C-alpha cells in the first residue's frame, strides 16, 4: 500500500466531508433564524473546497489521498479523490448550492415572524445529504462507503416527508424501508468479502480478489442493494411517489444527486474493488435493465397528468442511460469513452434535472398546482422558467450542444464500435420518447389561445435565474472540449 501521505492538500478531503457535518451542531446551537445564513456560508465554502480539490487533482494528474489520523489501511480510513470523485464533488456542490439558494424562499424565516422548525430541519437535512454524498465520493473502503450511503439515506428520507402530508409520509416510509433493504443486502455482501479477504480497503481488495463463489455472491448482493438505491427499473418503485410529495429542492437533490451516489458506488465495486469478477453477461443484464428503464420510464412519463410525476418518471428513464456504460465500456477498445459517456450523463442529468425540478417548483408556487393540462400559456407569464425547462429538456433529449448530447454521442459511438446494435436502438428510441413527453409540457406551456393562469404569488425572480443558470450549465457541459473530459479517468488506472 502506498505510504502514508501527508500532502497538505489532503486536508481538503477531510474538509469536504466534515465541513457540512460540523455545520449541523452549529445550526442546532444557533437556531433556525441563523440556519439560512450558516447554510449559505457553508455552501459557498463547500463549493470552494470542491473546486480546490478538483484543481489539485488535475494539477497533480493523480489521485489525492489522505489518511485519517495517520492510521494506514487496512485499519485506518483512507480518503481518496480520483477523477470520478472530483467531477461528482463539483456537481454536488453546484446542485446543493442551487437547492439551498432556491430554498431561501421556501424555508426562509421572514423578519419579525415567529421562528418555525422547518428551516432548521431543512438545512440540517441538506447538510446531512451533502456530507453523505461527499463521503460516498471520497471514501475508499467498503465499510466507510456503507456508512456514507446510510447517512445519505437518513438525510434524504426525511427531506421527502418534510411537508408532513399523509402521501408524503407514506412515500417517505416506502423509500426508507426499500432503501434499508438495499443497505442490508449491501452489508451482507461486505461481510462476505471481509470473510474472504480480511480487508475492505478497495485497493487491497483489488489486489487480493479471486473469482470464487463467495466473491460472486457478494458482488451480486452488493449490486442489487445499490440498484435499489439507484432506482433502476424494476426497483424504481419508491422514486415517483417520493417525488410527488417532496418539496422542489428535495426533488432536485434526490433526482439529481442521491441516485447518482449509489451509481458511483456500483462503478467502484465493479471496476475498482472487484476487478475481474464482473462478466459480460452481468454487464449486459445491467444494461438490459437500463434499457427497460429508458423505455418504460419514458412511456410512463408520457402519461403523467402532473408535472412533478412526469419529471420523476423521466428520472427513472435517464438513470437507465447510466447503466448502458457497463457493457459498452467492457466490449470496446474505447472503453474509456463509454465510461466518460456514462459519467457525463450522470453530471449533465444532475444539472438538468435539478433545473427541471426547481422549475416545476416555481410553477407550482406561482399557479398553485402542477397539472400539465391546466398550464396553457404559462410561457407568457413565466418565460424564463419555461425557457430554462426547455433548455434542460435539450440535455435530456440529447440534442446538441448539450452535456446530454455528448454523453449519448459517446455511448452511441461505443455501441457502434463494439458492434452492440441493440443499445443503439435503445439510445435513439429513448431520445424520441423523451422528446415526446417534453413536447407535451412545452406545447401546453407555449400555447397562445388560452388565458394564462392567474398568478397566486409574485414571481420568484431569483429562483428563475437559478433555474436558468442550472439549465445553462447542463448545456455548457456539452461545450467542454472532449479532450478535457478525460479528467474523469485521473487516478483510475484506465
Amino acid at each position, binding site marked *: 500500500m502506498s505510504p502514508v501521505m501527508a500532502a497538505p492538500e489532503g486536508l481538503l478531503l477531510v474538509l469536504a466531508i466534515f465541513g457540512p457535518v460540523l455545520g449541523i451542531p452549529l445550526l442546532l446551537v444557533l437556531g433556525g433564524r441563523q440556519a439560512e445564513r450558516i447554510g449559505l456560508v457553508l455552501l459557498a465554502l463547500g463549493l470552494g473546497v470542491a473546486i480546490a480539490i478538483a484543481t489539485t487533482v488535475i494539477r497533480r494528474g493523480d489521485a489525492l489521498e489522505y489518511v485519517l489520523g495517520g492510521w494506514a489501511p487496512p485499519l485506518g480510513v483512507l480518503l481518496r479523490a480520483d477523477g470520478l470523485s472530483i467531477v461528482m464533488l463539483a456537481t454536488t456542490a453546484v446542485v446543493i448550492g442551487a437547492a439551498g439558494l432556491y430554498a431561501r424562499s421556501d424555508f426562509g424565516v421572514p423578519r419579525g415572524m415567529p421562528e418555525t422548525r422547518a428551516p432548521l430541519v431543512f438545512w440540517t437535512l441538506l447538510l446531512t445529504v451533502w456530507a453523505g454524498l461527499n463521503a460516498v465520493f471520497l471514501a475508499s473502503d467498503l465499510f466507510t462507503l456503507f456508512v456514507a450511503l446510510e447517512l445519505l*439515506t437518513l438525510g434524504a428520507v426525511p427531506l421527502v416527508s418534510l411537508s408532513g402530508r399523509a402521501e408524503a409520509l407514506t412515500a417517505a416510509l416506502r423509500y426508507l424501508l426499500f432503501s434499508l433493504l438495499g443497505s442490508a443486502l449491501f452489508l451482507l455482501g461486505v461481510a462476505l468479502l471481509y470473510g474472504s*479477504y480480511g480487508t475492505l480497503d478497495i485497493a487491497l481488495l483489488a489486489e487480493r480478489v479471486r473469482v470464487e463463489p463467495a466473491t460472486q455472491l457478494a458482488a451480486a448482493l452488493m449490486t442489487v442493494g445499490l440498484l435499489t438505491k439507484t432506482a433502476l427499473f424494476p426497483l424504481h418503485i419508491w422514486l415517483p411517489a417520493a417525488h410527488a410529495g417532496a418539496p422542489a429542492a428535495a426533488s432536485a437533490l434526490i433526482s439529481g444527486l442521491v441516485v447518482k451516489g449509489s451509481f458511483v458506488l456500483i462503478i467502484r465495486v465493479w471496476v475498482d474493488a472487484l476487478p475481474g469478477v464482473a462478466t459480460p453477461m452481468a454487464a449486459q443484464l445491467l444494461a438490459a435493465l437500463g434499457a427497460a428503464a429508458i423505455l418504460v420510464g419514458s412511456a410512463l412519463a408520457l402519461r403523467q397528468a402532473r408535472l412533478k410525476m412526469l419529471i420523476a418518471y423521466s428520472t427513472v428513464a435517464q438513470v437507465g442511460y447510466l447503466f448502458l456504460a457497463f457493457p459498452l465500456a467492457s466490449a470496446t477498445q474505447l472503453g474509456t469513452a463509454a465510461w466518460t459517456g456514462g459519467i457525463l450523463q450522470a453530471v449533465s442529468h444532475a444539472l438538468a434535472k435539478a433545473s427541471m425540478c426547481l422549475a416545476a417548483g416555481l410553477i407550482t408556487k406561482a399557479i398553485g398546482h402542477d397539472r400539465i393540462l391546466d398550464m396553457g400559456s404559462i410561457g407568457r407569464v413565466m418565460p424564463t422558467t419555461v425557457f430554462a425547462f426547455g433548455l434542460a429538456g435539450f440535455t435530456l433529449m440529447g440534442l446538441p450542444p448539450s452535456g446530454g448530447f455528448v454523453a449519448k454521442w459517446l455511448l452511441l459511438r461505443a455501441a457502434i464500435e463494439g458492434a452492440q446494435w441493440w443499445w443503439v436502438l435503445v439510445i435513439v428510441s429513448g431520445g424520441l420518447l423523451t422528446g415526446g413527453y417534453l413536447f407535451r409540457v412545452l406545447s401546453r406551456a407555449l400555447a397562445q389561445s388560452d388565458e394564462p393562469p392567474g398568478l397566486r404569488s409574485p414571481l420568484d425572480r431569483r429562483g428563475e435565474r437559478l433555474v436558468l443558470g442550472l439549465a445553462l450549465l447542463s448545456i455548457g457541459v456539452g461545450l467542454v472540449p472532449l479532450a478535457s473530459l478525460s479528467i474523469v479517468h485521473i487516478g483510475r488506472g484506465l
Partner: protein
Amino acid sequence: MTLTITSLYGLLGAALVGLGLYGLLVQPHPLRKILAFNVMGGGLFLVFDVVARRGAAAWFPADPVPQAFVITAIMMALAGTALAVAIMLRLFAETGRVTLRPEPPASSDGQGGDS
C-alpha cells in the same frame, strides 16, 4: 465435517436474514416490516461476527475490526429504525391509520393522450 460453533452461528445468521427478508416483503403492516428489518439486521450482524472469526484465523484469535463494524452497523440500523418509527407515528397522527398502500403512482386521469 462436524458442526462447529462457528458454522452454527453462521447458519443461524443466514436463517435470521431469510426470515427477516421474508417478513419485510410479505408483511403488509409497516410496524411488522420494521420489526422484520431488525430481525434481518440481527442475522446480518451474526454473520459478520462469524466472519470475524474466519477472516482473522490467520493472525489473531479474533479480529477486532469486524466487531467495530458491527457496532457501527448496529448504530445505523438503530437510526434507520428510529426514523421509520417516527415517520410511522407521524403518519398515524395525520391519518389515523398506517398503511403503505400507495395511491397508484401512474395515474393517467384518462387524459394522457394529447400528444
